[in-house]
């Protein structure tokens, strides 16, 4: 990982006693998306993601609002360090923070265990990330998916084009 060294304060708002999470919880995340999609349709699922980003992750938004792009980079470094199997390069550039997701830990684990992945799984990164970023004056744009992608967090006024959802790949086993 490149860029600024993380501060000694943990940038994760919710912390655990173990250093990394239990990967089988990715099964439940995938199953939850499938359940909400079945019950509420794609717009309902996108609303669930947006609500998660805006409410559950509100403490992260507050950190980003106060600390700007350096806080964004610190958060994602800490986040991926706690996700088992993640291979992600976080770079802080003058006007953006990029996440080069070389190995998505969730897709990797779901595939390894033969789980059927909700096709729109990768869209959750956009809808949650955008809901977290917007109140902090930031935006996220994503390209790729299905195991690897590039996520760019930038100032909202610099995000001239809306996210093209077609540029986020469908996920599959």
């Amino acid at each position, binding site marked *: 990982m490149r860029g600024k060294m993380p501060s000694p304060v943990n940038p994760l*708002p*919710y912390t655990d006693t173990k250093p990394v999470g239990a*990967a089988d919880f990715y099964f*439940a995340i995938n199953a939850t998306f499938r359940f909400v999609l079945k019950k509420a349709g794609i717009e309902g699922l996108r609303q*669930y993601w947006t609500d998660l980003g805006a409410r559950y992750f509100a403490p992260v938004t507050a950190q980003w609002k106060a600390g700007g792009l350096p806080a964004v980079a610190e958060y994602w470094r800490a986040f991926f360090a706690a996700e088992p199997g993640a291979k992600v390069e976080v770079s802080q550039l003058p006007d953006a923070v990029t996440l080069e997701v070389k190995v998505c830990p969730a897709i990797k684990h779901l595939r390894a265990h033969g789980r059927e992945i909700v096709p729109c799984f990768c869209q959750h990164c956009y809808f949650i990330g955008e809901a977290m970023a917007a109140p902090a004056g930031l935006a996220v744009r994503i390209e790729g998916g299905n195991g690897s992608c590039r996520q760019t967090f930038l100032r909202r006024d610099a995000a001239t084009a809306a996210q093209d959802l077609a540029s986020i790949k469908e996920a599959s086993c």
Partner: protein
Amino acid sequence: MLGCYDFCGHYEWTFEWMIQRGGEPLLREYWDEAIHRDSQRHAMELIGSKGIEGMKEYWGHTLVDEGAGYHCTATDTVFRTDMHECPSKGFLIRNGLHQHHDYCDHCMGWIGPLLKECGWVVDHEHNHCGQCWWELRRATDPTRPGKPGEMSGEHDVRKSAGWLPPHGTMDVYERANAPHDKTTRKVD
């Protein structure tokens, strides 16, 4: 991205999101359909095919992965777990997360229906402080749970100093298979 490190946090948040949209029936359906039948289908496969040996295999793996402080005791007819430090309730308590009125119900929400399909019933108590115990028996076995220490000795969570909750109530399930099968009793 939604991660597994703080899974218990957004899982508990999701319970309340479900209730706001479809009430308790939608939440119970979520636990049964998404968690029991989809996410944890490997538990169904193990327990359905191997019974108590499957329980040992399943909970031995998952509770270690989740960092639980627990003890399991099994005979040929009963599988008992004493949970001294529930990893997920502990996560919520340490982080001050409390969206849903009783997070602990989620275990019975998915495990209860799973065991019912396999022909088992559950005796269980939880104190909402990260401690609980479970005894799983075949539905055809009328045996009631023993007194504290009878099955798991010093590992019995009911013998620990923190067992009685400070708010004075305990949630109790007797030969149950669903989250609404519980009664709440005063313990002071």
